[in-house]
């Protein structure tokens, strides 16, 4: 039962009770304080009824104070105390209310901290609202993007989550828009609610940020109710808490949406990229295929392009040899140089496209290294001479042109500089191509000074594998010039196709822009690298390496071996160019000569004054300090009585007019760039009185020697299907004095050969009906008229396989189109040599030969013997050689016999070949001829029919050997 305020005051509140009790104790007149039920709250129960003073509070009677005078005062005091108590309670109530709120906020904050997501937060808030307000209906609404108020969460029956507030809720909507919290206990009476509202009573607390209203918390019920300000307060607090949390949740949701969109976009983009990639790959494949097709097309255009070029160049040459006036000649010169340039360009482009298509093959043949290098030099010598550049080449173990400093010990461990092998297996044409390219560039871009080509060999450490056991050599070529150099920033452009260093260079110096890259590719195919060192204004050095196996060395062994008739001879070398001097000195020394060199004329004079004595001197006609002839005269004066023969070094293509009327005797002229073979021959001419044997006649300016046919009569058959080329070739041959016959294809050729004999057949390879190879095979098989014509192939293909095919088919020689006149002439001479031999010794019927007959006819050609003697340097050496022959020849004859018995055509051919050359050397021409024919049979693989020849050879040999022994006797006696 609830107690009255008075009861409570004096009830269990000890302090109050004690205070009042103490007061009463002092007031004897107050007897007791009683409540409404007359229960004594304090004091003694009144024995006597005294005065009763009421104690009232809050408009209601609480009790009485019974007693005398003080009772009234006490009653008044109690009243006051009750008031105070009331006030205290009111205040306390407020505080407690505050406490409630605070705790609510704390709790809510705690819960919100762990709640996640808009729905969770909304649920939390609304649940608190429901719990604290005990409302039956409620909702948390938020403005959606559409602008409508959407119910996020709700309880009760009126509101459902997901719905939006509609027209019937327009009052609520307005309320919320207002942005102020409100309690409406009777909606039906509220004029703002036009439509029939769903709720009877509502407490609305808008959820807002500082800027705008984002939604609202609503609680209420369907009937009118009695919500208080406290409820409003509560809801407002909750709404205030809700706002930032919801805001965050919304942000987060938005972020998630963005994220998802982003992810989607990324996925789309990835798919697009994959698609694009695929397309790109396809496009690339297509492009590559197209590229390949293009390259293949270009490569196969070789034949088509070269054929008309052949005609242009050839015809122009012919035209130039007719009677032309100066203007006409000038015109033809332009045509010629343009067509040369065009041919170069075409070749470059075809080469480049072949390389790019991966179709360039190297022809691996053994060749002489010096020949290749010297051939390349020849092509630039004239131009170098015109520009007054020194053109020098060194093939050396110690490389004078190297600009690599040698650290003592280190370099030597890594590199053993040794002499390169004289012959290597490789593609001579391509190597020469690279050399010519680099030399051309060097000459082109150098205005003064020198161009040096140095060839050495590096032997890097053992990780270079051998090929089939054969040792590999790493050749190192350097083309070094003192030219304009290449700026550092342009170096990378050098090896890019179609770029020269800069356009001004192109304008000044010309060029296709393909040379270097082709060279680099070729070098790479040859197993090496190409690189450049250069300094602006000082010059450039183009290096490249080539990996090759050595080949059996042919003729030029004399280059590095001591030569008996030069041993001890003293040579004076005077030249301005240091490399040149060095090269000459080293070369002379390698032959056993004693050489001294100087670049200073005075020094040479000093030597002579001091009594130095020389057997010969080599002098450069272009001395930097003065006139060479004057120096020569001065030196000769000092040399005294003994002759001092002089070899004058003269730039290629120049004939110094001074020599002809100077009165100074020049004993020999050697052209720069100096080749050891030239020097050798010149010295030989000097010391042995032997006329220099001209192995390779170099045709002079006039390519068309009309008397060639007289000197070298040949019956020539031309087999060519192309009308232009027919005409061209016939005309060329006519110019040389030959009336050649024509066949348009292989079949016609065969018919022609059956009809009459020919010495030489110029056989085009690509022909209709029957091509050149087939025709050749047939010819070799048939041997029409018992003859083996000398067949020269003419073909546009440069593939090694084609060359092999030609030789296999039985061709003797090979010319590639477009045919150069010089090449044709040289080939004819070669053919002529063989044919002439055959013509000189017509094969007599074997059976008629007798030993006596052999003895009577001169067995040995005396001239040949003399030549041999001179070459080896004297009779003593000759007899050594004869001894060797007398051992070798019988062995070779035995080999022939064995090969015949075993039916071994290759062995037969080889033995015949060797014996043939040997016999020729000693002038045993008849025996040599027999061997030649046996060799031919071996080639044809018809060696059984060579049995008669072998018999004849064996019969002839004793005569030869006795003749040689007779020579030997005369030698030793």
């Amino acid at each position, binding site marked *: 039962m609830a*107690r009255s305020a008075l009861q*409570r005051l004096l009830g*269990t509140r000890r302090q109050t009770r004690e205070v009042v009790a103490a007061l009463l104790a002092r007031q004897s007149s107050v007897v007791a304080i009683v409540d409404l039920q007359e229960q004594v709250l304090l004091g003694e129960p009144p024995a006597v009824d005294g005065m009763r003073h009421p104690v009232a509070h809050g408009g209601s009677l609480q009790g009485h104070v019974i007693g005398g005078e003080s009772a009234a005062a006490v009653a008044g005091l109690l009243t006051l105390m009750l008031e105070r108590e009331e006030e205290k309670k009111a205040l306390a109530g407020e505080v*407690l209310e*505050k*406490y*409630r709120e605070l*705790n609510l906020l704390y709790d809510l904050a705690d819960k919100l901290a762990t709640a996640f997501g808009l729905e969770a937060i909304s649920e939390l808030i609304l649940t608190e609202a429901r719990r604290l307000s005990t409302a039956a209906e409620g909702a948390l609404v938020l403005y959606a993007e559409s602008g409508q108020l959407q119910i996020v969460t709700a309880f009760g029956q009126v509101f459902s989550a997901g719905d939006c507030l509609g027209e019937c809720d327009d009052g609520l909507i307005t309320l919320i828009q207002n942005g102020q919290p409100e309690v409406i206990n009777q909606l039906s009476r509220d004029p703002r609610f036009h439509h029939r509202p769903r709720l009877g009573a509502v407490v609305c607390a808008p959820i807002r940020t500082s800027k705008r209203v984002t939604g609202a918390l609503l609680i209420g019920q369907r009937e009118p109710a009695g919500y208080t300000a406290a409820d409003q307060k509560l809801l407002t607090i909750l709404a205030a808490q809700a706002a930032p949390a919801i805001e965050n949740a919304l942000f987060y949701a938005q972020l998630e949406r963005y994220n998802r969109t982003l992810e989607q976009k990324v996925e789309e983009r990835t798919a697009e990229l994959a698609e694009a990639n695929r397309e790109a790959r396809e496009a690339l494949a297509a492009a590559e295929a197209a590229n390949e097709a293009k390259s293949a097309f270009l490569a196969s255009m070789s034949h088509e392009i070269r054929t008309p070029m052949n005609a242009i160049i050839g015809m122009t040459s012919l035209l130039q040899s007719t009677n032309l006036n100066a203007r006409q000649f000038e015109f033809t010169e332009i045509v010629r140089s343009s067509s040369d340039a065009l041919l170069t360009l075409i070749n470059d482009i075809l080469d480049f496209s072949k390389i790019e298509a991966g179709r360039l093959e190297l022809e691996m043949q053994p060749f002489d290294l010096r020949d290749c290098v010297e051939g390349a030099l020849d092509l630039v010598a004239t131009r170098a001479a015109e520009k007054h550049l020194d053109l020098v080449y060194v093939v050396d173990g110690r490389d004078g042109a190297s600009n690599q400093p040698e650290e003592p010990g280190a370099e030597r461990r890594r590199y053993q500089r040794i002499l390169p092998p004289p012959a290597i297996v490789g593609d001579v044409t391509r190597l020469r191509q690279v050399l010519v390219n680099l030399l051309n560039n060097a000459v082109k871009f150098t205005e003064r000074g020198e161009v040096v080509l140095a060839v050495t060999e590096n032997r890097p450490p053992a990780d270079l594998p051998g090929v089939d056991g054969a040792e590999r050599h790493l050749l190192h070529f350097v083309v070094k010039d003192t030219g304009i150099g290449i700026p550092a920033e342009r170096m990378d452009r050098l090896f890019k196709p179609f770029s020269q260093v800069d356009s001004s260079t192109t304008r000044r110096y010309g060029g296709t822009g393909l040379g270097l890259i082709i060279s680099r590719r070729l070098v790479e195919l040859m197993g090496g690298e190409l690189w450049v060192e250069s300094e602006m204004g000082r010059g450039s050095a183009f290096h490249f390496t080539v990996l090759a196996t050595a080949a059996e060395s042919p003729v030029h062994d004399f280059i590095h071996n001591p030569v008996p008739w030069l041993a001890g001879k003293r040579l004076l070398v005077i030249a301005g160019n240091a490399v040149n001097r060095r090269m000459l000195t080293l070369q002379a020394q390698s032959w056993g000569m004693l050489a001294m060199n100087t670049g200073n004329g005075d020094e040479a004079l000093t030597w002579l004054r001091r009594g130095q004595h020389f057997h010969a001197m080599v002098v450069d006609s272009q001395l930097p300090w003065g006139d060479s002839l004057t120096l020569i005269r001065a030196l000769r004066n000092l040399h005294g009585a003994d002759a001092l023969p002089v070899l004058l070094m003269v730039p290629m293509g120049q004939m110094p007019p001074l020599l002809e009327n100077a009165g100074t005797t020049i004993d020999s002229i050697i052209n720069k760039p100096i080749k050891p073979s030239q020097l050798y021959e010149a010295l030989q001419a000097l010391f042995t009185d032997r006329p220099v044997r001209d192995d390779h006649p170099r045709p002079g300016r006039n390519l068309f020697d009309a008397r060639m046919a007289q000197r070298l009569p040949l019956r020539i058959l031309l087999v060519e299907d192309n009308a232009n080329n027919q005409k061209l070739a016939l005309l060329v041959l006519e110019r040389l004095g030959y009336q050649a016959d024509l066949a348009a294809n292989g079949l016609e050729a065969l018919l022609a050969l059956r009809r009459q004999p020919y010495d030489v057949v110029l056989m085009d390879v690509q022909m209709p009906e029957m091509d050149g190879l087939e025709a050749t095979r047939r010819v070799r098989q048939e041997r029409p008229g018992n003859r083996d014509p000398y067949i020269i192939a003419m073909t546009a293909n440069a593939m090694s396989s084609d060359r092999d095919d030609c030789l296999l088919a039985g061709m003797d020689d090979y010319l590639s189109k477009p045919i150069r006149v010089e090449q044709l002439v040289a080939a004819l001479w070669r053919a002529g040599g063989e044919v002439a031999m055959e013509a000189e010794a017509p094969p007599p019927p074997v059976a008629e030969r007798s030993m006596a007959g052999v003895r009577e006819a001169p067995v040995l050609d005396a001239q040949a013997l003399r030549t041999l003697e001179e070459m080896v340097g004297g009779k003593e050496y000759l007899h050594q050689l004869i001894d060797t022959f007398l051992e070798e020849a019988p062995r070779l004859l035995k080999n022939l016999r064995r090969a015949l018995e075993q039916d071994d055509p290759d062995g037969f051919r080889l033995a015949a070949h060797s014996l043939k050359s040997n016999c020729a050397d000693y002038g045993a021409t008849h025996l040599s001829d027999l061997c030649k024919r046996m060799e031919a049979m071996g080639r044809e693989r018809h060696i059984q029919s060579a049995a008669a020849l072998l018999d004849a050879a064996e019969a002839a040999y004793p005569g030869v050997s006795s003749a040689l022994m007779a020579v030997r006797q005369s030698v030793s006696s």
Partner: protein
Amino acid sequence: MNRKILIVDDDAHIRALIEITLESLEDEGVVLLTADNGTEALEIIHAERPDLVFLDAMMPEPDGFAVCRQVKQVEECRDIVMVMLTAKGQAFDRHRATAVGVDRYLTKPFDPDRLLAVAREVLQAGPGEVE
């Protein structure tokens, strides 16, 4: 026997607030006692043996922990439910509380409803049944 609740806090207003919060219990015959320092609290506890003590943690010596320890050390007083009142924001030293035998704690400002609920619960549970 009358149920007794002792309210110990050196702040007179807090004491008054708690008293007013628990007023309704007075109607049910619960006696509300108050003390404004630890020493007095111990006297009253020994004299009156209340069932429940609301004890402010932050008081001058002896503080709430000390009072609690002393009370719980006495055999007969172990059953008295000691509810510690601590300030919000202050790291409540649970270890210390457990060590001295505190039964429950509430944070100030307290939730009046909560306080009342705890009181009812304790009193209804009877001696020995409060955990």
